């Protein structure tokens, strides 16, 4: 039982990161109808910005906002410079997805060019090995920090989307772009804000994942795919669904690793997704898709 709990907690820990990635993906998908394949690379980009600052002995409280800003800036530039003009020209959804792949490659190139491909340790104020004991379960400092950060990020997103005028505009734009345009709502700025928020979320995930492993330019690939899976699991159009999907996926993966062998860790998680989608075709919290008019 203790073993089960320990693995479940470890799973939740990974799941929180998947949830952050998924949350951003869903935010972008809901607002711009684009699956953002650059999401992981935006996170990498931001994380390396933090890495550059941290390894020059800047404080974490400078590195954190700088990293969020770097990630957000990259995607806002992409949105205004590439995606919005393409959408205005009537680019197909597939074409737009390919544009995001282009962004992914560019960001990857920038990171490789600036930092090389050698794995590096990320200096970080929280340790992965120091842990606290809660009853039968050990939780590392880093994991606690991740929990706090993920919670803060989710609450912040919830408040912005549900409680502010800008969030209201985001919901409006995501539901009916044309109506929002004809009301004079600055839809492009609203959408750029959605991209920025989503990217900042991904950077948070990257920042708190990096210290647990060695940092290299491709370290976000796996969490990106997991976040993607989590978003689908939660029902691609639902923000709470993304969070639930991420947590479920993290736990499923961790337990699979513990009881079915490490080799099955990833496979089994996807079997779970397959099984869920078999029963709930719209995902855990998704709504049946309604064509937008």
């Amino acid at each position: 039982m203790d073993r089960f709990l320990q693995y479940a907690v470890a799973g939740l820990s990974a799941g929180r990161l998947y949830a952050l990635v998924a949350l951003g993906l869903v935010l972008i998908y809901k607002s711009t109808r684009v699956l953002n394949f650059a999401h992981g690379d935006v996170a990498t980009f931001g994380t390396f910005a933090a890495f550059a600052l941290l390894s020059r002995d800047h404080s974490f409280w400078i590195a954190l906002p700088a990293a969020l800003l770097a990630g957000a800036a990259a995607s806002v530039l992409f949105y205004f410079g590439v995606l919005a003009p393409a959408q205005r020209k009537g680019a197909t959804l597939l074409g737009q997805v390919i544009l995001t792949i282009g962004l992914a490659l560019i960001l990857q190139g920038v990171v490789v060019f600036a930092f090389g491909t050698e794995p590096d340790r990320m200096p970080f104020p929280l340790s992965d090995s120091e842990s606290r004991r809660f009853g039968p379960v050990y939780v590392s400092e880093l994991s606690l920090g991740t929990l706090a950060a993920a919670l803060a990020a989710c609450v912040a997103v919830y408040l912005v989307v549900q409680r502010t005028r800008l969030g209201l505009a985001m919901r409006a734009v995501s539901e009916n772009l044309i109506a929002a345009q004809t009301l004079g709502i600055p839809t492009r700025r609203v959408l750029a804000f959605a991209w920025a928020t989503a990217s900042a979320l991904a950077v948070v995930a990257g920042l708190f994942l990096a210290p647990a492993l060695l940092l290299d330019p491709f370290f976000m690939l796996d969490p990106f795919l997991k976040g993607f899976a989590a978003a689908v699991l939660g029902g691609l159009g639902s923000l709470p669904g993304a969070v639930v999907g991420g947590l479920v996926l993290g736990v499923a993966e961790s337990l699979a690793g513990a009881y079915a062998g490490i080799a099955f860790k990833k496979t089994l998680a996807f079997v779970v997704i397959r099984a869920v989608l078999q029963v709930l075709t719209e995902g855990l919290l998704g709504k049946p898709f309604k064509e937008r008019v």
Partner: protein
Amino acid sequence: MSALLKAAGVETLYFDRIRALSSVSLEVEQGEIFGVLGPNGAGKTTLLRTIAGLLPDQPEKGSIELAGVRIERRRPEEIARMGVVYVPEDRGLFRELTVAENLELGLWGRKGNLEATHAMFPILRERAGQQAETLSGGEQQMLALGRAMLRRPRLLLLDEPSLGLAPQMANTVLAALQEIARAGTAIILVEQNARLALRIAQRAAILEAGRIVLQGTAQELEEHPDVREAYLGVATVIAQKAWRLHRRRRRW
């Protein structure tokens, strides 16, 4: 007096090759209700969408001026901010948001309150907390109009506002339109229901296959033999689209 909206030689294409409007010219005065009639597929909706800037890189040819300022090929947000509001056939509501939230979005970027809106459509106050998609068709139309009016438009583009409304409700909406126009807003009113439209419009145009085939005062059109035959002939409100079944040779 020079017209508020002046469209000249407007030509709109879909996919760069399907011509939906050819050399459409019209002028609408401030405070005027201008009716646009025509069969299905004539290009009425396309005309409104072209004016509202919702068709990227269209019109292909021609000019559209609002109070002397060229607006063609601008972005829809910009045109909206210049005082043009488009209410599409499906009302363009945010269906998952509440009535109050829909109205709040109508006030985007300006100060104002809902007093006048609630005075015009008291039902919207009662329904404030309800999701827009749970409103009846007539209530939705009132919400769409109320929200549009919050923007104090100079020009209101309405696509078939009477669609799906019982005669009683259609009359309520039309009365509201007359009130709106009296306050100085110009309205382009696209209607299938010619009788209804000609009753409140000062002038109107008939659009067929992307061209204006007839244009004049409401009275001129009402008395025109072809219009009587094709658009008013069988017109009871219930059989509003029945003219299609009676298509005969026409003189234009």
